[in-house]
């Protein structure tokens, strides 16, 4: 298990480095940064001054190494737009995104796994069909529309929960439901398929032949094997929710990372864009690593290979 984790960590570090190189190069090769920072009305002289001030006249490799050196000490420079450092901005916005993503995932897992197990056990009955309907609706409905519907029902009509802001836990209920519902169908269907497959397997027959009770057969012997692929999917879904919840964040006016990235892109605030891209990539890398470790804990064939 120890060498397994070390190997995975080394892979994760090299992936992070690769992503930082690629994103840095893409951003700097996408056009002349000095021109776009200076804006359409700037004179050639002003553009040149910005180019020198921001160090954009130096070779791209040395710019990258400078940036990487800073990034390794959590120094991503200053925002061009806000009067604060990039790190302060991120530290300010991150808790909102993490809270939203964490709640949404917790909700999605606690609905999708029991529902998937139930649908598999009641295969081809009305319960199974209802679960399928729930999944199809979740996959088909755009999340912004579902978010707006929630606001209309629970914030405007019933006035149970606030529609916007991020001051207390109440503010996270509706966005977490909107985002969580989006992540539920895929996990539920994967759980259902996995359970159906595992329930047909020889070792489930062995467990029943031992006279084990139904709960022990389903939860100890079947579910443990059926959720292995679901763990990997949940990690990807969480990565997506942490990095890509721009839509939900703007519907509910939550100032999270997604909103920050969106604003930074539209304002040509490149240090912020660069840092957010790296942070989101790191989320994915860490989550994949955790999923690999969790899979190895669930499946001994992986860890002793």
């Amino acid at each position: 298990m120890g060498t397994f984790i070390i190997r995975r960590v080394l892979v994760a570090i090299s992936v992070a480095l690769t992503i930082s190189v690629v994103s840095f190069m893409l951003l700097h090769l996408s056009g002349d940064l000095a021109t776009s920072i200076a804006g359409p009305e700037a004179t050639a002289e002003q553009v040149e001054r910005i180019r020198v001030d921001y160090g954009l006249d130096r070779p791209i490799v040395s710019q990258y190494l400078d940036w990487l050196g800073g990034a390794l000490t959590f120094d991503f420079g200053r925002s061009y737009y806000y009067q604060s450092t990039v790190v302060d901005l991120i530290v300010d916005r991150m808790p909102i995104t993490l809270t939203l993503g964490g709640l949404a995932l917790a909700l999605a897992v606690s609905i999708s796994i029991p529902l998937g197990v139930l649908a598999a056990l009641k295969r081809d009955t009305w319960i199974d069909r209802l679960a399928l309907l729930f999944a199809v609706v979740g996959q088909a409905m755009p999340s912004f529309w579902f978010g707006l519907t929630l606001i209309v029902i629970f914030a405007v009509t019933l006035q149970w929960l606030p529609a916007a802001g991020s001051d207390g836990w109440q503010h996270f209920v509706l966005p977490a439901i909107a985002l969580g519902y989006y992540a539920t169908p895929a996990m539920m269907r994967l759980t259902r398929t996995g359970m159906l497959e595992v329930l047909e397997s020889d070792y489930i027959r062995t467990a029943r032949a031992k006279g084990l009770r139904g709960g022990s057969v389903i939860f100890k012997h079947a579910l443990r094997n059926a959720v292995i692929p679901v763990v990997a999917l949940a990690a990807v879904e969480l990565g997506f929710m942490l990095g890509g919840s721009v839509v939900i964040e703007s519907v509910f006016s939550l100032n999270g990372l997604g909103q920050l990235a969106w604003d930074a892109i539209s304002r040509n605030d490149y240090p912020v864009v660069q840092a957010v891209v790296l942070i989101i990539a790191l989320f994915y890398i860490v989550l994949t690593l955790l999923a690999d470790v969790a899979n190895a804990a669930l499946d001994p064939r992986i860890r002793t290979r």
Partner: protein
Amino acid sequence: MPLLNVKNLHVDLPVEAGMLHAVRGIDFHVERGEMLCLVGESGCGKSMTSLALMGLLPRKARLSADRLEFDGIDLATLSERRRSDLRGARMAMIFQEPMTALNPAYTLGNQLCEGLIRHRGVSRREARERAIYLLGRVGISAAKERLDQYPHQLSGGLRQRVMIAMALMCEPDLIIADEPTTALDVTIQAQILRLLRELQQEFGTAVIFITHDLGVVARIADRVAVMYAGEVIESAPTPALYAAPGHPYTRGLLSCIPTPGRTLPGSRLQAIPGVVPSLVGDVEGCAFRNRCPQAQPTCERTPPLMALPDDHRARCHYADRPVPAPRQPETMS
């Protein structure tokens, strides 16, 4: 009273083409401490019979029987809950595929112990002690260390030994072994076979041994029942069956077995021509007649189970009398 008494057992499976009659009214019994060998080719209903006994039939399957008694308990009407109290405790099963019959996610110790803990309520430590003892008895060295290993760390032969130990955990009265050696190498097969026979005699457990091999395997049994197309077509004490097989199918099976020293090198191996009839829908007359070398017009009628000397029975019109002289060539179709 026999330990297991089965009368007129039917198992039907709905399939797309209609109703598949997998088991068509079989009778047999197993005495305490006896080894009964159930022989037949694939699809003859032998595995369905064993699953019916264990109460592990597929959900869609339908079972009926005039009598299905285990130690005086009527299995056909038993609730699933009471049934699961018997499974693993008083009747255990060993499966054909040792590679997939163990759960990859749990240690051998965990899987060996859980049945005993469930049925006898013993502590984990006591269960582990019994598991270590039984692993030793089935010929696994370093049993204590093995308990913490996972199935994928063991070879097929070792896993099958683990399955045997698992079946013995609660000291069952009956073990059903469904082709436990088929997936193994020939040398390992012989070891496992010998082991099963030894343990069966040592613990006095009754065993139903299911196989398609009338050659080596069936010879270790006390009695043999031959199945064909969902029926028991012949049953007898082992010596009587081999001395004077009463059914042409049994004779066919026996002539298929090459004998070292007697089968000449390069000579053709015997085979029974034709295929097993479809069991979807009703089967009229003798199910074997389309493959039988001595089939007669009489065989259009369903043959009764004829009683022969020595507790020997065969389902053939001609089991106890000679077949009439061959018909004239022009009347043959």
